[in-house]
């Protein structure tokens, strides 16, 4: 499942919704990205996250399907937020559900690596003085 949304998400609830469907899941690996206070030597006040939404859904689905096949996942969830996000806000959630732990780790890493490379999202950081597309 792919979700592109403005609103926050609850990690426990998001995992539970999928986990409840499959008793065969033994391992779940999760990555959560947060807005941090300090990047590239500057204090960040907030981010504006822009997305090319239809293409993001298409790209993330493609990456997720490759991960599911390559690492024999039972299921996977990607949530990526957009809009104005403050320090300590969550940005992204990737969850990979599998029978054994090794595959869940490798799949989450695989998805994050391709997401960073190909998913059409852009961050604009605002500092005390000025702002910058990163």
């Amino acid at each position, binding site marked *: 499942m792919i979700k592109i949304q403005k609103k926050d998400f609850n990690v426990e609830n998001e995992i539970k919704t999928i986990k409840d469907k499959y008793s065969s899941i033994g391992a779940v690996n999760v990555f959560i990205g947060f807005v941090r206070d300090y990047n590239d030597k500057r204090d960040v006040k907030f981010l504006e996250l822009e997305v*090319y939404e239809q293409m993001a859904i*298409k790209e993330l689905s493609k990456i997720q399907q490759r991960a599911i096949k390559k690492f024999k996942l039972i299921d996977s969830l990607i949530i*990526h937020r957009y809009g104005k996000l403050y320090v300590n806000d969550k940005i*992204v959630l990737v969850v990979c559900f599998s029978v054994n732990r090794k595959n869940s780790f490798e799949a989450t890493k695989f998805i994050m690596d391709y997401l960073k490379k190909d*998913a*059409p999202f852009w961050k604009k950081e605002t500092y005390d003085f000025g702002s910058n597309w990163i």
Partner: protein
Amino acid sequence: MKIKYFAWIKDITKKDVEILNSNYPKNIEELKKYLTLMYPSLEKHISKDILRYAINMEYNSKNPSLQENDEIAVFPPVSGG
């Protein structure tokens, strides 16, 4: 043809989207010429090959022919996650 601009490209083009009718670029090389002509500040980024081009929401590194009803997107390297 619809051309969409994202992130700081949009700050240069001063628009999110534009529609071209009969006189649209017929391939990516022609698109680059069009962008250079219309938005001279984009030239250095185009010549350094920094921009990415998506055709109907798919990346494309080749130089395929473009159709009148295509949706083209022009954007800088992504930075999500």
